[in-house]
């Protein structure tokens, strides 16, 4: 039996040989990000301009955070991810465990106004292996149509079932929720982590969560809260601020963000240790964390640049045309009552608190 027409065989051979010598030709690298509206913003703001500028193609993959896949690749020594968009706690842990390449901040380009990179980044912008890209925040939001009369305005309102009866959405993890519970209970922002550090403080946070436990729907993916708010499944939900913003401006949803007690966090970009495409990966990190790239991303989703020179470049949303500044988590008006997420505390206590949180949920 003939499997292939003769004419196809030379073509196949040619294709195979092209693929084999492809290593000299312009490369492609794999970048991994969070998908959804944020993934699209990174693609349009950094990836496409990068390919235009350098000729290096980019394969995009999505993930939901964590170090498991990176660790598997490094352990086996078969690395196909090059650059990963990381939570800061993972960037530090991955660095300690040898999963990420150290990146010298002085190798990064200066800011848009010529400031050297080391000074252009805000202090928490760089770790040994991670380069900061954007501020993002966990807030809570409500659907204006579903709350008539008085609107919630403080973190305490989120936990107030009498004033605002109805179901709430919260992320199914202990972090952020415990902080929110203490803020709602009246703990001053600068005392939140000190309080959590004591057994009594932890008990207090769990006790506050207990008061609304029966009314909580727990979410996992960042796309769920806007969906649940739109469906009326919950009357308010904790959420990533950018996802709510995109629902507001692109889908005209009547969502309102309550910035009181927001938990401000930073995102990082890192390079997987031992990647054979290190030079290209470094080039991409330098490009995607430049002030101009950060600003292009920030004009597509409300996460603000971590370079001082990047913020002035963020003007209006590219599609909706709205001014971005009032929607940014780090803008002065929104961050007046913001808590900085203490990733180092969570790196220490994640394991035991997750067990305790799961046990509490199952009870």
């Amino acid at each position, binding site marked *: 039996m003939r499997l292939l027409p003769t004419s196809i065989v030379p073509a196949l051979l040619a294709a195979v040989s092209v693929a084999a010598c492809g290593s000299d030709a312009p490369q492609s690298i794999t970048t991994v990000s969070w998908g959804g509206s944020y993934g699209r913003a990174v693609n349009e703001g950094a990836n496409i301009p990068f390919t235009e500028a350098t000729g290096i193609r980019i394969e995009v993959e999505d993930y939901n955070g964590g170090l498991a896949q990176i660790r598997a690749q490094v352990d086996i020594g078969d690395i196909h991810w090059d650059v990963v968009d990381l939570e800061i706690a993972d960037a530090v842990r991955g660095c*300690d*465990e040898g999963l990420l390449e150290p990146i010298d901040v002085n190798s990064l380009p200066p800011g848009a106004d010529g400031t050297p990179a080391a000074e252009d980044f805000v202090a928490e912008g760089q770790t040994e292996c991670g380069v900061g890209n954007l501020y993002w925040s966990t807030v809570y939001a409500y659907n204006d149509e579903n709350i008539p009369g008085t609107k919630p305005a403080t973190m305490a309102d989120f936990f107030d079932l009498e004033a605002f009866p109805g179901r709430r959405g919260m992320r199914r993890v202990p972090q952020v929720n415990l902080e929110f519970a203490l803020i709602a209970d009246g703990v001053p922002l600068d005392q939140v982590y000190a309080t959590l550090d004591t057994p009594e403080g932890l008990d207090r946070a769990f006790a506050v969560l207990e008061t609304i*436990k029966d009314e909580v729907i727990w979410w996992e993916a960042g796309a769920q809260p806007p969906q649940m708010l739109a469906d009326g499944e919950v009357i308010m939900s904790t959420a990533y601020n950018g996802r709510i913003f995109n629902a507001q401006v692109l889908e005209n949803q009547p969502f309102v963000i309550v910035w009181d007690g927001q938990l401000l966090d930073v995102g990082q970009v890192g390079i997987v240790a031992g990647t054979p495409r290190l030079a290209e990966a470094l080039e991409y990190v330098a490009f995607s964390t430049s002030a101009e790239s950060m600003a292009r991303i920030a004009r597509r989703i409300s996460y603000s640049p971590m370079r001082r020179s990047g913020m002035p470049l963020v003007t209006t949303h590219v599609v909706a045309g709205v001014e971005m500044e009032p929607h940014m988590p780090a803008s002065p008006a929104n961050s007046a009552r913001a808590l900085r997420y203490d990733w180092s505390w969570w790196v*220490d*206590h994640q394991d035991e608190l997750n067990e305790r949180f*799961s046990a509490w949920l199952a009870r």
Partner: protein
Amino acid sequence: MKVPVAHERRAQLRALGLVAPLLIFIGVTFIAPLATMLTRSVHDPVVADALPETLALLEAWDGTGTPPEAVYAAAARELERAAAERTVGQVAGRVNRVQGGLRSVVTGTARDLGDIGQGPWREAMTAIDEAWADPATWHAIRTTGERFTARHYLNAVDLQRLPDGSVASQPEERRIYLRLFLRTLMVSGVITLLCLLLGYPIAHLIARAPPHRANLLLVLVLVPFWTSLLVRTTAWIVLLQTQGVLNDILVAMGLVSDDGRLAMVYNMTGTIVAMTHVLLPFMVLPLYSVMRGIPSTHMNAAASLGATPLQAFLRVYWPQSLPGVGAGALLVFILAIGYYITPALVGGSDGQLISNMIAYHMQTSLNWGLAAALGGVLLAGVLLLYALYDRLVGVERMGLG
């Protein structure tokens, strides 16, 4: 015993050659990963490899007060080396699991030690962090230093080893896994029962229908089977949620008030409904193929001998369909026990199963040892149930038709 003659041996070799690809495939993709994972649950050399001298010196420590200066000196040297080799994070993560809060102590100390050229190391390390003066820190290091360890299995059944070597329960607020194992078994049992209740009449109907109608019905069973699991699960969310189709209908009919909409998803109900639907074909298909082999004349014969329809069913039909019931129930039960995506999506807070915990430890906490131990306990549980089934019903009676 008969010695095989040459041509028989050749035939055997040829047969072996034919099944070899399958054997190799199973070995590489199933047995080897399973063995690696189970090894991980008892073998953890990271700390032992990183701090060999410290651990050797700790052997002599009596466990009260702080260890001698020699231990501090060895720990300082080895931690500094671990930091340089970038393995300190793995060491710190393991120590942290025994004693929460030590991750930053270990990584921070390893980083700062580089600036300190000489001892005395006890003072130097205690100056970097008070925790080094706490015997609990050294107990944690000694515990994680065991190359072969039972601590993952103890942890998987809510036990822990105390510093004095005795085994005790975890503190109340951290007891979670036994409860989840029991819940997983219970939920799987309920789902198996529901699948049987729903699947049995369907399978009977298909087996008795004329061929063209049977084909149509079979396609109706198989179409959901061929649809993506995620699509089916999400469809259940649309149907069952508070503002969903089913609640809307109930409200429109006046059966429930608009404020009293039923919570049917993001809880145990959602998990059971969605999983029953997803697993139903695995019950219907074995039942159908067994029922097709039961001649319809048997029921007629029973009736003509004076049996009521119920008697005929219980004494003639049901016993003959038992092999299909066994096969379907075992299939559904074992699939349900390891189910993961559906409970994660519709389970809410009280619909989580043990598999969700295994996934968490694989993907997020990177505690592969504990994930492997949980998997090991689950595997042992399934094998035990299988043995029990074999004892009570007999595996040879199980039939796929």
